C-alpha cells in the first residue's frame, strides 16, 4: 500500500458572504516536497492557506467546505494553535508579530526556554524564569541561518518591513516539530540577494523532511526551488505541473489566461540626456534620517523635473529612510529644497501641502484604513489636504462630503488599476494583499502630486498587474509630468522603469547611474560601503 501523502486537500471551497473565492480545490503534498503556489492577485492563495492554518477569519465568515487530511487523517483546525500543534507553521503575507516585543521575544514566543528556580519548584512551572541567554542563542542562530544582520534586541514596532519579514521567518525556523511550513510571499520585500539566501534555507528545510508551501509572485523563484507548481485562477486550480517541466512564460499564461509581454525593458533613452535644459525640482542636501533599521546618514541627491528616479540598495542600508524622512514620518535633519525653496522637515502636512505624495512600504500600518471602505481609503488624503470631493455649503463654512464624487473617482481607479473587489464600498481589509497595494497607489494618484515617492510599489503584485502598475506610473509620469521617485528592492524593476538609479549603501548614496547601465555595476555599488 502506498504511503499516504503528508497533506491532502479534497474539494475545498470557500465563499465570503456569498462571494465564491475558492471552488473545489484538490491537491496533495508529500514529505519534503516544496510546492509553489502561484496565481493572480485575489486568486485565493492566501485564503487557501488561511483555511489550512485555521485562521479565525475563516470561521467567522462561515467556515469552508471540503476536506483536509494530514497524514491521512481528517483535520479541521479551529484556530492557529491547533494547526501549530499538528506541525503546521505559517509566515503571513501581513506580519503577525507583536509590535511591543523585541525580535528575540517574538522568535521564541510561547516556547521560551525556561529556568527552574526554587519558587517554581514549589509553585509549578508557570513561575519558571526565562532563560534569556538561551533565548538569545536560539534566535541568533536562526537569524544567522538566514544570513542577515538584524538587531535581535530591536522592538518589532521600530523595524523596517524587510527585517520584520526575516524575524517572522526566523520564528518559524526555530519551531522543532514543524512538518509543513507555509510561506505567503516571504520574498516580496527582499532584494534578489536576500531572497536567494532565503531560498537556500528553504531548500535545506526540505532536505530535513519539512514540506513547504511557497507563495510568490516572482515566478523565477518558483522554478528554482519548487518540486511542483500549482497555478490558481479565480479560485480554481488550473494547472498542476512539475517545476522542471515548465517555464515562467508558460506559468504566466496559465495564471492570467493569456500571453503577457514582459515589462517593457525598452530602454527609455534617458530623458535627462535628451532634454536641453533640465530643471532641478528637488535637491536633498546632507539628509539624515533616524528610521530604525533604515538609518540614513548623509544623503545628497538632485532630482530633475519629470524624471523617474530609482533608489535601490540592500535592505537595511537606508533606501527606505529617504522618503520616510523627507515626508516627515521619521525624525530627520539636513536640507531639502523643492523648486529652490527649502521645505522644513518633520512636518508631514507641509510636505503634502507642497504637493509631495508618498506611498509607504508599510501598507497595513500607514498605508490603509483597514476598517473603512475603498472610497474612504482612496479619497481621504486628497479630501483632507486639497479639499477635494467636498461640497462647500454656506460659503465654505461647512465642508460636506460629496459621496457622488467620491464614488465616481473610486470607481475610476478601481477600473484603471483593475482592483479586484466587490464594489467601492468594500472594506480595505477584505481585499487580497496585491489589491490593497493598488489601493495605496490609487490614493497617491488621487492627490495629483508634483513629486511622488513610491516605496516598493509592486510589493505583492502579480506579474500581469505589475505591468499595469508600472505602466500606470509611467503614464502618470509622462502625461501629468509628475516626477516619480521609486524605491524598490528589485533592481530589474527599477531598470525597466527609471531614467536614473541611485544606489544607497551604508546610509549614503554610493552612486547614481543611468538605468541602462549593466546590473553588475549596480551590484558593486550596493555593497560598496555596507555597514
Amino acid at each position, binding site marked *: 500500500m502506498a504511503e499516504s501523502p503528508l497533506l491532502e486537500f479534497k474539494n475545498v471551497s470557500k465563499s465570503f*458572504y456569498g462571494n465564491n473565492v475558492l471552488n473545489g480545490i484538490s491537491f496533495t503534498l508529500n514529505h519534503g516536497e516544496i510546492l509553489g503556489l502561484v496565481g493572480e492577485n485575489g486568486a485565493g492563495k492566501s485564503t487557501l492557506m488561511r483555511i489550512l492554518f485555521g485562521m479565525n477569519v475563516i470561521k467567522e465568515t462561515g467556515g469552508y467546505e471540503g476536506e483536509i487530511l494530514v497524514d491521512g487523517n481528517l483535520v479541521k483546525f479551529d484556530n492557529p494553535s491547533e494547526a501549530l500543534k499538528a506541525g503546521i507553521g505559517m509566515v503571513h503575507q501581513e506580519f503577525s508579530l507583536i509590535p511591543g516585543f523585541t525580535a528575540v521575544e517574538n522568535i521564541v514566543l510561547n516556547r521560551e526556554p525556561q529556568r527552574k528556580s526554587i519558587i517554581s519548584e514549589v509553585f509549578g512551572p508557570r513561575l519558571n524564569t526565562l532563560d534569556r541567554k538561551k533565548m538569545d542563542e536560539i534566535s541568533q542562530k536562526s537569524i544567522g541561518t538566514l544570513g542577515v544582520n538584524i538587531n535581535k534586541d530591536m522592538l518589532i514596532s521600530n523595524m523596517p518591513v524587510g527585517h520584520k519579514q526575516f524575524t517572522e521567518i526566523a520564528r518559524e525556523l526555530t519551531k522543532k516539530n514543524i512538518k509543513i511550513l507555509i510561506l505567503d510571499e516571504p520574498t516580496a520585500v527582499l532584494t534578489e540577494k536576500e531572497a536567494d539566501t532565503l531560498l537556500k534555507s528553504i531548500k535545506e528545510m526540505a532536505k530535513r523532511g519539512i514540506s513547504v508551501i511557497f507563495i510568490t509572485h516572482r515566478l523565477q523563484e518558483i522554478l528554482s526551488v519548487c518540486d511542483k507548481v500549482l497555478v490558481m485562477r479565480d479560485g480554481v486550480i488550473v494547472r498542476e505541473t512539475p517545476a522542471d517541466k515548465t517555464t515562467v512564460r508558460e506559468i504566466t499564461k496559465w495564471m492570467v489566461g493569456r500571453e503577457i509581454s514582459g515589462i517593457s525593458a525598452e530602454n527609455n533613452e534617458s530623458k535627462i540626456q535628451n532634454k536641453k535644459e533640465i530643471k532641478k525640482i528637488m535637491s536633498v542636501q546632507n539628509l539624515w534620517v533616524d528610521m530604525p533599521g533604515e538609518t540614513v546618514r548623509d544623503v545628497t541627491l538632485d532630482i530633475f523635473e519629470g524624471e523617474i528616479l530609482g533608489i535601490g540598495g540592500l535592505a537595511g542600508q537606508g533606501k527606505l529612510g529617504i522618503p520616510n524622512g523627507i515626508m516627515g514620518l521619521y525624525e530627520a535633519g539636513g536640507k531639502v529644497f523643492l523648486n529652490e525653496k527649502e521645505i522644513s522637515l518633520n512636518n508631514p502636512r507641509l510636505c503634502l501641502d507642497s504637493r509631495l505624495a508618498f506611498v509607504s512600504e508599510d501598507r497595513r500600518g500607514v498605508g490603509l484604513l483597514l*476598517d473603512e471602505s475603498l472610497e474612504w481609503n482612496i479619497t481621504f488624503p486628497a479630501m*483632507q489636504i486639497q479639499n477635494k470631493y467636498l461640497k462647500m455649503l454656506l460659503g465654505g463654512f461647512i465642508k*460636506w*462630503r460629496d459621496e457622488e464624487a467620491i464614488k465616481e473617482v473610486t470607481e475610476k481607479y478601481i477600473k484603471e488599476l483593475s482592483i479586484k473587489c466587490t464594489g467601492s464600498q468594500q472594506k480595505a481589509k477584505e481585499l487580497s494583499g496585491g489589491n490593497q497595494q493598488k489601493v495605496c497607489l490609487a490614493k497617491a494618484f488621487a492627490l495629483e502630486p508634483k513629486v511622488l515617492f513610491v516605496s516598493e510599489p509592486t510589493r505583492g503584485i502579480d506579474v500581469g498587474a505589475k505591468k499595469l502598475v508600472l505602466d500606470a506610473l509611467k503614464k502618470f509620469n509622462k502625461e501629468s509630468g509628475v516626477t516619480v521617485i521609486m524605491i524598490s528592492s528589485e533592481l530589474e524593476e527599477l531598470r525597466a522603469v527609471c531614467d536614473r538609479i541611485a544606489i544607497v549603501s551604508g546610509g549614503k548614496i554610493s552612486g547614481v547611474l543611468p538605468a541602462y547601465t549593466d546590473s553588475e555595476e549596480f551590484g558593486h555599488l550596493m555593497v560598496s560601503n555596507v555597514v
Partner: protein
Amino acid sequence: MGKTIIKTDLIDDNNSFMGTVKSAVKSFGLPRLIISLFLLLMFILAPFVGANFFTQLSNTLNRFSWNAVLVLAMVPMIHSGCGLNFGLPLGIIAGLLGATLSIELGFTGATTFWMAILLATPFAVLFGTLYGFLLNKIKGGEMMIATYVGFSAVSLMCMMWLLLPYHSPNMVWGYAGTGLRTTISLDGYFNQALSGFLRINIGHLSIPTGALLFFGILALGIWAFLHTKTGTAMTAVGSNAKFARACGVNIDRVRALSVIMSTWLGAVGILVYEQGFGFIQLYNAPFNMALPAVSAILIGGATVNKASITNVIIGTFLFQGIVTMTPTVINSMIHMDMSEVIRVIVSNGMIIYALTRKSEVSK
C-alpha cells in the same frame, strides 16, 4: 460536465440564502437580538400581570428621552479613538454648574434651561480642553485615565458645592445659609422644560415630544458633523491614527475636539436628564451616570472605536426599556414591592454584561 455546473449553482443559491440570514443576524448581533426579544416578552407580559401596556411604553419613552443625549455624548470620543468616555462626569459637572448658576442668577421657568446650556458651555469647553490635553499625553491608556479623571473631578466638586458662594434660598441648605443641597427641586425652573413641550397624551400613552425632538436635533447635528471634512478626519484618526497623520491630519487637535464635543454633550445631556427627572442631583450623583451610558451604547452595538447614531438609539431604548420594564413586571408577579432592588440588580447586570462584551469586539 453540465451536471456539475448545475450542482454548484444550487449550492451557490443555498449559500447566499443562508449567508443573508446569517449576515442579517450578525449585523444586528445575537446578544442584541436576545435582549430585544426579552424586552418584547416584558411588553407582552405586562398586561397579564396588571400593568398597563401604554403606561409602560410611556415610561420607557420617557426614560429614553432623559438619557439619550448622555449616550450620544459617547460618540465623538469613540470616533476619534479615545475609547469609551468614562470621564463623562466631567461634562456632567459642567452641566451642573450651568444649571445652578442659571438659577442663582435669578432666571425662572423654561428660560433657566436654555441659560443653563449657555452657562455650561464655557465650562464644558474649558474642561474638555484640559481633559483632551491630558488624553493626548497618554495615547493608548485613555479609558483608564478617563475613569480617574471622572473620579477626581467628582470628588473635587463635592467640596466645591459646599464652598462656592451660592445664595439662592432654593438651592442652599436652609439652616446654614451656604453650601448647596444634595437634591434641588426644579419646580418653577426647568422641570419638564422640554418634555412638556408639545407633549402628546392619548389615554395612557404620553409622549415627551419636546425632549425627543431635542435629542433628534442633536443627533442630526452629530450625524451631519461626521459627514463633514473634519468629521471624516475624526473617524479616520480613530480607525488608524498613523494613516491620518501621514495624510496631514493633526491628530492631537482632532482628538481634543472630540473630547470637547463629548464633554459638551455630557453637559447638555445631564440638563436634559434633569428637566425630565425634575431635580438637580449634586455631590456623588455624577458617578452614577457614566456606566449606564457606556453600557447603553455597547448594547446598541458600538465597539471601542466604531459607533453610530443608530447604536445610540437602539442601545438607549433597549437599556432603558429593560431597566424600566423588568422591575414592574416582576414586581407585579410576586406582589411585593421590590422594584427598586430589582432595578438596581437589572441595571448593574446589564452594565456588567456590556463591559464584558467590550473586550470581545476590540481589535
